[in-house]
Each structure stands twice: as structure tokens, then as C-alpha cells.
């Protein structure tokens, strides 16, 4: 996940709400550029981000997934 320090409480709430603690989910604290590489290298299967729904940020997110396809 991006910026784990900031998102700690949020992630804890999500894990509790979806009961993800029992699902052996692994969380990795990575920077945006590292996250893209981790997805590309199949070291991570999903990306957790907290961002405004704006064109700019959606484009940034799309960019990190486009890298996985190339």
C-alpha cells in the first residue's frame, strides 16, 4: 500500500470490516514508483491507495497499471 504511515488507521479499519486478517493478506509499504514495479514483477496483486477522484490521480493510477501490461 502507498504511504502506510498515514494510512495505518484506515487499513486497520478495512481489514476489520472485510475480515481480511484471517485471509493471510500481506501488506507491503511501498512508494508509488515501487508499487508500479511490484505489480509489474507480480510481487503484489493489488494496490491500495487513498486519493481524490480526479483526472490527474486516476491517470497516475492508470499509468502504474499500464506498466504491468507492457
Amino acid at each position: 500500500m502507498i504511504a502506510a504511515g498515514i494510512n495505518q488507521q484506515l487499513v486497520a479499519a478495512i481489514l476489520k470490516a472485510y475480515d481480511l486478517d484471517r485471509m493471510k493478506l500481506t501488506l507491503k509499504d511501498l512508494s508509488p514508483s515501487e508499487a508500479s514495479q511490484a505489480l509489474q514483477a507480480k510481487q503484489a496483486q493489488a494496490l491500495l491507495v487513498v486519493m481524490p477522484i480526479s483526472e490527474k490521480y486516476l491517470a497516475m493510477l492508470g499509468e502504474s497499471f499500464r506498466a504491468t501490461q507492457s
Partner: protein
Amino acid sequence: MTKLREASRTAVSAGAGAMFAAVAAGRLPRWLRVTVVFSLVVLACAAGLLGYRYISRPAVLTVATGSVDGDVTRLMSLVATRMAATNAPVQLRIIDKGTALDTANAFAAGETDLAVVRGDIGDLSAARSVVIMTYAVVLIAVPPGSSIESAEGLKAKTVA
């Protein structure tokens, strides 16, 4: 030193008093009375102008900002510049703290008057919202073609 200061203060007061008494009694030559009255009017105008400027000066508030991409600082700087250009009664001084966490901590420590922060970071128990800049959402995104379609699909997976 203190005695000298007291003596000079007394002398100035006595001089000013004697001048007022002389002007009031009409014992000074006409040209001198006109000069004294004109000087007093100029002094009163200057004092009034200074007082007006002091009262009408803008209140400057400090704003802590910080984000990974620096967008928040850039945006708030534009707002501050615009407020300064329009002589708004409230003006902003932006303090870039680098990250959202440091921003929240600086605000919680009372270092700034305002902060652009996420509501769930740091100790904001005494904070009040002034403006909601944007709504952020939590996204768990998966690459195209992924087999993960729900929260259950995250079982034994790694989330970056």
C-alpha cells in the same frame, strides 16, 4: 540614566504645556501660532492615518501544507497569492511541511493557525473544518485481467 530620562520627559512635557498655554493665551506672534496649529493638525492627521493603517491591516494566518506530489502547497500558494493581490482582510502564509503526516503533527502542536490535512491523520481533536478541499477515497485496485473481483479474492494475496 533613569533620572536623565525622567528629567528630559519632564522638560518636554513642560515645553509642550508652555506652548499650549502661550497659544491659548494669544501671547505668541501670529505666524508662530499658525505654524504651531498647522503642525498639530499635520501630526493629528499622521496619527489618524497610522491608526487607520494599523486597524485595517490584514490578519495573516499561517497554513501548514504537505503532500507527496507537492500539489497541496502549490494550490494553497496560488490561493495566498490571489488573496494578497486583492488586498483581502485575511492573508495566508504557507508553510510547506513536506508530508501530510508532518503537516498534521505541526498543526496539532500549534505551530500554525490552519492546515490542509486529512481528517483521519494525527491528533485533530481540537480542530475545526473551515473548507473541504476535496474528498479522497480508498481504492483497492487490481491490474486488468486479475482474478480478484471482491474482498474475498484478496485471500493470501499481497497488496502494495
